[in-house]
């Protein structure tokens, strides 16, 4: 097939597919499109796949990839439940990046970032995001976007973006979050919901994901995230999206969330991902996230400890009081991180409450004698003895 004929056919197929997917949006009789064959290497779509194949090779070797076979299999299974016959073409990679994101490249490479894993409360919420990304994939939105840009003679702009793909998945982020039009996002939302429902997940969790994210972003100083955050620039207006998802979910009630399984699977990584969250230094967003987590799971000391760390780091107004309250609540659970006592010690030391500071530091050293900062903490204790 020559290039021109291929493009014409592909465009027609693409249009037909969009029409069918638009119908899917309305609900009835929609079927998941058939598996996507590997495109002709001489085509624009083939070029896109080749580029993504190279990115995937880098991702496989990346030190940022979380290589836990059990967790990997668990996530792959979720993607397969959603993707159905697209399962053999979907390859899931869990990536250590403390931001809310997942994306799926046109060649089937799917990245899930650790920041999303931290934020999801259950399997159904992750499924909502993955379903949305699979929606972009089955609808071949990346290719549509590429052709749309080409048709506007903006190839240069697109290729500049490709040129910046040094970091793993940068293009995929672009494709997954920024490049799609609001029309594409609406379709992907609806396909995602359909896939969730078919896989037996509760579709109501999709609106919850969106609501939780909005709550975090609204906590950030500087006003309305829908105006300042690029994610929202190309996505449908937040309220519209949430309401649409809720309305669609009402038509397909029921389904599971698998929260208990989810919590068990992510528990070994929780502290590491929470430490990443503190490092982001986005105090207000983190407090909103952690407050939500504490309300949902008040018995989990990690959330209390982490919110205390954020308060201590921000150190404004009553933050030290709030931090002490959370450290103490974490400590009361009996399975608090050892650093809980270091945090208390640092606040007491700043407040010149020497006896309390010493007791807290000594407890920290007792629990974590090999901690990287043990020598520093010992020096504080010695200094306070004099």
């Amino acid at each position: 097939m020559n290039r021109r004929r291929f493009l014409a056919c592909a465009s027609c197929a693409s249009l037909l597919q969009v029409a069918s997917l638009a119908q899917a949006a309305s609900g009835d009789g929609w079927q998941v499109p058939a598996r996507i064959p590997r495109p002709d290497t001489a085509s624009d779509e083939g070029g896109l796949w080749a580029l993504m194949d190279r990115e995937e090779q880098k991702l496989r070797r990346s030190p940022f990839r979380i290589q836990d076979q059990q967790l990997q299999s668990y996530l792959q299974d979720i993607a397969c439940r959603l993707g159905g016959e697209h399962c053999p073409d979907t390859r899931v990679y869990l990536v250590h990046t403390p931001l809310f994101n997942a994306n799926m490249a046109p060649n089937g490479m799917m990245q899930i970032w650790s920041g999303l894993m931290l934020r999801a409360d259950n399997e159904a919420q992750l499924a909502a995001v993955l379903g949305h990304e699979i929606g972009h994939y089955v609808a071949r939105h990346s290719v549509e976007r590429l052709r749309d840009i080409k048709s506007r003679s903006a190839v240069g702009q697109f290729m500049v973006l490709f040129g910046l793909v040094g970091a793993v998945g940068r293009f995929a982020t672009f494709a997954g979050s920024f490049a799609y039009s609001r029309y594409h996002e609406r379709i992907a939302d609806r396909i995602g919901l359909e896939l969730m429902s078919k896989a037996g997940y509760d579709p109501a969790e999709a609106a919850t994901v969106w609501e939780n994210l909005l709550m975090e972003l609204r906590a950030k100083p500087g006003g309305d995230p829908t105006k300042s955050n690029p994610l929202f620039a190309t996505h449908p207006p937040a309220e519209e999206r949430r309401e649409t998802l809720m309305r669609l979910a009402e038509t397909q009630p029921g389904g599971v969330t698998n929260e208990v399984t989810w919590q068990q699977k992510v528990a070994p990584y929780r502290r590491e991902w929470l430490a990443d969250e503190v490092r982001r230094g986005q105090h207000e967003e983190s407090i909103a996230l952690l407050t939500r987590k504490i309300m949902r799971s008040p018995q989990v000391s990690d959330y209390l400890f982490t919110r205390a760390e954020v308060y201590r780091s921000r150190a404004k107004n009553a933050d030290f009081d709030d931090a002490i309250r959370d450290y103490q609540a974490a400590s009361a659970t009996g399975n608090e991180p050892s650093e809980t006592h270091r945090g208390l010690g640092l606040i007491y030391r700043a407040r010149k409450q020497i006896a309390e500071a010493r007791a807290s530091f000594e407890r920290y050293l007792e629990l974590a004698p090999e901690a990287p900062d043990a020598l520093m903490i010992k020096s504080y204790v010695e200094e306070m003895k004099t």
Partner: protein
Amino acid sequence: MKILIATVLVIILAGCASAVKVSSGENTLGDRLTVTLEGPWNQIKAPGLGPAQIWTMEGMPIDQLLIYTGLKDGEAIHATNSSSKSKTFNFRASMEPDEIVSLFEGMLTRDSSTYKLVKLEPAGFGGGKGFRFEYSLVRKIDNVKLSGVGYGAISQGELFAIVYQAPQLTFFSRHKRRIEQLAVSARIKGVSQKQGT
């Protein structure tokens, strides 16, 4: 530091930056810090950099030495852009060494690089009491594994510090002794041996 590196690279490519030789022997940096060098270094100079001086032996972005010569209370430990909405990490004079190291940790992971504190301990710096820390870092932009070492002290409410990082393979060990020597030679004006942080 990735943001710093990117900024420096952009500036260099734009032809606005220059590398200036820092000679062996005693050098006064800022108003109050002096260091004695066993050999020459290269300092990157360009508009918009700061608040730390940026030195390199191998060239950017292979290795970087950041030198803080008296950062004041409330100032950011990295270059800031008034139009940028990204988070800034600001020094407070009341900070303990743990908290200062956390500031550097926040700065170094602004690009989602992964950081691990290896050691934090009391150490002399600038002629008085201070602290020393070691860390490892996997840089997000190129997946390179880096090692880092830093020294710091607070004097009269100002932060004096050096932070050096280079790839674990070859470069860090090549220059580590030079960094330790530089740290030992550092003197902060107005600090006596008995003075604490």
